[in-house]
């Protein structure tokens, strides 16, 4: 939307700086959230951008923190397997039978 035709000269001058200020406030709102994404590729455990990352050195970056997501299916299927096998656990049943329960 352009400046309306009835705008005073001051409003015409102010229009573009106002757009820039609004854009900066939008950046202030979103940038702190988006900064987490590049930081997740950090090779170190530290919660900061390392010097290697700043100088765009490939060794400063890694996908290691995403490994957890790759082994997650294994964790879930392992838990499910343990849950199912616990239904016919002979050792536990014998223990409880010996206690009279």
């Amino acid at each position, binding site marked *: 939307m352009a400046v*309306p035709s009835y705008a005073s000269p001051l409003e015409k001058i102010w229009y573009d700086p106002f*757009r820039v200020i*609004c854009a900066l406030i939008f950046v202030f*709102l979103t940038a702190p*959230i988006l900064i987490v994404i590049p*930081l997740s590729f950090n090779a170190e455990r530290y919660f900061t*951008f390392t010097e290697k990352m*700043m100088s765009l050195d490939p060794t400063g970056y890694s996908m290691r923190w995403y490994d957890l997501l790759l082994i997650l299916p294994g964790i879930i299927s392992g838990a499910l397997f343990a849950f199912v096998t616990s239904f016919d656990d002979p050792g536990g049943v014998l223990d409880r039978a010996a206690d009279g329960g």
Partner: protein
Amino acid sequence: MFQRTLILSALVTALITALTLLLGSPIAHRLATLPLRYSNPRMIFVLLPFWTSLLVRTTSWIVLLQEQGVINSTLVATGVIDDQDRLSLIYNQAGTIIATTHILLPFLVLPLYSVMRPIPPSYVRVARSLGASSWRAFRSFYFPLTVPGIAAAGLRVFILSVGDYITPALVGVATGRLISNPIAYHMTNWLNWSQTAALAALHLGCVLLLYWLYDQLIGIDNLKLG
């Protein structure tokens, strides 16, 4: 000790409310005056922080503000400040103010937007065509129509920030505490429930006093929450 925290956090909360109004009203006005097909894509800038977890946003402010953080590193790299005197932006009042302002900004922009959007642009146009200056048109037409939104959004931000616990606990550790932190401290560290109840009642009393003041100044009938 508690008196100091009470007065200090009242001042900090007032500052946070003023800052959110200062930053929020321009973008609410901009979003409300743009045509919908331009303002809707820009709305994502307000909704993205609104939908993101509070903890993620607080921790990302730790990344940005800490001594080895993004802002300090950028300032050192560009030569604005020396490596020795990095700014301490976090774990004090400054950290609490910056992070809480960012966290509560969507809570101000969204109600303000919903009050500003239905105001027909023709009102200001009529005022201008009848010879009013831009300041007069703003003061006599636009501003009175937005007062219910500004008042409601301001009060909402104030109440939310006065009871904020987790953000000051994470980014304001030692000196940047708000009222909720000593309350939680008495509860979790000393298990002194009566003391906790007394402090919480005092806190509630202060908020009710502000509510009364607000009713006297603006009137609760004028409250318009979206």
